[in-house]
């Protein structure tokens, strides 16, 4: 009897507590909305949004619905996260490896880089790049060409856009190259396991990767043109670049701040991963006659990656969540477009904030679920 009470009483109380809180909040919300004449519902999503978004990946105008505005914001969030993840990974790996260098100067520069960028709040870094550093850039008419064809101006970064002919042939060739590389790898692994023969897979793969797309240009009728940004006079003092792709300064500031900030955390993950592989592993591998490259590829990396990947994915998730700081410098991401402008226009606070939070929650939980599955797969199976 005593045991049953001990088991069920706390649980019943907990349920009661949660139900009471939610009930209290719902009743309050109901009365508040009744008083202000607001009704709850998601019908507004199909209404005309009648606001413009400065930068969008898909066609969007004021006559489109709020649902499409949501999509625009989501795509912009994903775009900035994706670019920043690529840059922060590259930087993070370089810095992480540099921290383990035997060179005193390199080791310490890397350590100071990490200490410097991770101890300044991200918001301040974004503000610094956007309001201070990028504002010091030249006006469009005074900009010098970088690499001959791109222009870094105060209004954004202008790069040439690619104009493809028969793009699908090129894509098929790329796909074929990837498939043949996978087949080659499997074949090479089989050969090594069964007959003990080694073939230079990397060299062959590179050759395939270069030759097949090249063939598509020569035989498949694929051609590639670049549309260069051209300086155009708008009025007496105002110039603008036309053609090509323009990356707005908000995007650049965000990518810079996010990738510099997150790269310090990635660097720490990489360092911990490489340090986590015990020295004996390296010595054992060398003593059975593997070359230094093979030691790295076959012994160190597989073990280090097992330590590196879970915390690094966590950092990518943080980066995606941090990209919501975009709202502070008016980059049209999910928070600014949907929880900012759309909320201001419709006044549907509860619906819009819930949708925004649920979207981020979905992204986080999906990636977390994938990570759990991956961890289960790669964990060391002890016999």
């Amino acid at each position, binding site marked *: 009897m005593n045991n049953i009470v001990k088991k069920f009483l706390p649980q019943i109380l907990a349920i009661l507590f949660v139900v009471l809180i939610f009930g209290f909040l719902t009743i309050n919300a109901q009365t508040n909305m009744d008083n202000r004449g607001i009704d709850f519902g998601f019908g507004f999503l199909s209404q005309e949004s009648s606001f413009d978004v400065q930068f969008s990946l898909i066609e969007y105008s004021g006559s489109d619905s709020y649902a499409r505005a949501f999509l625009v914001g989501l795509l912009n969030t994903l775009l900035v996260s994706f670019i920043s993840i690529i840059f922060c990974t590259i930087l993070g790996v370089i810095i992480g490896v540099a921290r383990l260098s035997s*060179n005193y100067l390199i080791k310490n520069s890397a350590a100071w880089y990490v*200490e410097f960028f991770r101890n300044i709040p991200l918001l301040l870094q974004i503000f610094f790049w956007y309001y201070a550093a990028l504002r010091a850039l030249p006006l469009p008419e005074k900009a010098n060409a970088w690499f001959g064809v791109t222009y870094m101006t105060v209004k954004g970064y202008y790069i040439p856009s690619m104009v493809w002919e028969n793009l699908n042939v090129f894509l098929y060739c790329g796909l074929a190259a990837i498939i043949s590389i996978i087949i080659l790898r499997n074949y090479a692994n089989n050969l090594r396991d069964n007959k003990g023969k080694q073939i230079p897979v990397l060299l062959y793969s590179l050759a395939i990767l270069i030759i097949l797309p090249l063939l598509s240009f020569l035989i498949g009728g694929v051609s590639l043109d670049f549309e260069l940004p051209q300086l155009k006079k708008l009025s007496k003092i105002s110039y603008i670049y036309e053609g090509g792709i323009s990356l707005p300064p908000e995007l650049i500031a965000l990518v810079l701040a996010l990738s510099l900030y997150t790269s310090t955390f990635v660097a720490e993950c990489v360092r911990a991963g490489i340090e986590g592989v015990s020295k004996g592993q390296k010595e054992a591998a060398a003593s059975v006659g593997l070359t230094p490259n093979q030691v790295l590829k076959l012994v160190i990396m597989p073990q280090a990656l097992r330590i590196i990947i879970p915390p690094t994915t966590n950092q990518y998730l943080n980066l995606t969540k941090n990209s919501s700081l975009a709202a502070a410098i008016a980059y049209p991401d999910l928070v600014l477009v949907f929880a900012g402008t759309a909320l201001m226009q419709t006044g549907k606070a509860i619906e819009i904030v819930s949708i925004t939070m649920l979207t981020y929650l979905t992204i986080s939980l999906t990636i977390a679920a994938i990570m759990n599955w991956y961890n289960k797969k790669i964990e060391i199976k002890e016999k």
Partner: protein
Amino acid sequence: MQAINFLKPNRDNIKNYSIIGSVLILISLIDVISNAFLKTNLTSFLPGSLTTLFPLILGLIGLNMMRIDYSGNKTLDLLNKNINTNNFNALLTLLILFSIIKALPPSLSWMIFDANISGDSKDACTGTGACWTYIKVWFRRFMYGMYPNEFHWRINTAFILVIALGFVGYFMKENLKKYLALYYVIIYPIIAYLVIYYLISGGSFGLQWVETGAWGGLSLTFIVSFFCLIFCFPLGMIFALGRRSNLPVIKYISICYIEFWRGVPLITVLFMSSVMFPMFLPEDFFMDKLVRVIIAITLFEAAYCAEVIRGGLQSLPRGQYDAAKSLGMGYWKMHIFVILPQALKLVIPGIANTFLALVKDTPLIFVVGLAELAGMLALAKTNPKWLGFAMEGYIFASIIFWIICYAMSKYSYNLEAKYKTER
């Protein structure tokens, strides 16, 4: 005498090699330094890009000549081991050295030599460097926000009192030490709240009322992070225990809570607190914006705190639980007297890291209209009398935050090292 082999230096000619090598390196350094500081190009007689690459090539040859294994010279061996193990390393060494030399003069002259600090208006800034006058004039605003100047002593006193009360634990007598946890978890937050309420807010004891809208600057950052920390710790503890509970309902409620807050960005939580939360409050019930923000950040950070504390609970060996149970202790007795004292000691570094993240997150309250340091900077930046000093402002704020965060991260690192050795 053996002919000097440039490509393969050896021990026999160590003197020749080291002298020629160091002379070459010296020349390359002189070239770079004169380029950077005196703006004179010593190698202008060389064609094109060779003059920029000249010091690099010279330095590389020099370092190559000095690379002698087991030379017997201690300094040389130390140098070779640390910065000159192979050609690639030597190249990186030179590149880092040269870029430091190149970057020094412009940044030094901008920050110090060409900068202005005198005067109290924009006109005082005539130099090409930074205008620290701007920081000087706005300093009080950056620290205290719009809080009336004559009452700044109230903020200072409140902070000193709160910090002094925080150190009580160090001076407490041995027989009172058992009440320390009670003090820090329950009594201290209440006292701190009262001190800040009556001193900073005012309204009684003859102190003038200052509404929270006027609070701001760095002091607001401290107030927000302080309250969030002391409130999120007990809340996190509850959810950490809940997540490890055997009772399924409590376990899943805790998991839902933790995963929900960890899955959303803080900025949406702040939006929630400012636009959605008022809808959920009873009619005619007004809650100050600052209080709402503190509640929101507390709920958010409690989830992170819970995960850190759970880590500590998990790392305790099972034997501790079994031993406590075999003594006939119940759930609460076991946790209060055996488990939590050990687990909490283990998680102090983790909590310090959470607090660090919290301090770095507080500038975000700017997006809901509370003017802490970042907010004050945005305000000062758009002031028509002080246009165009965004750079100085952000560098100043970065330096302040960097010092705070760096000190805290070093402290937590030390704590980690300390507790590691004790176990």
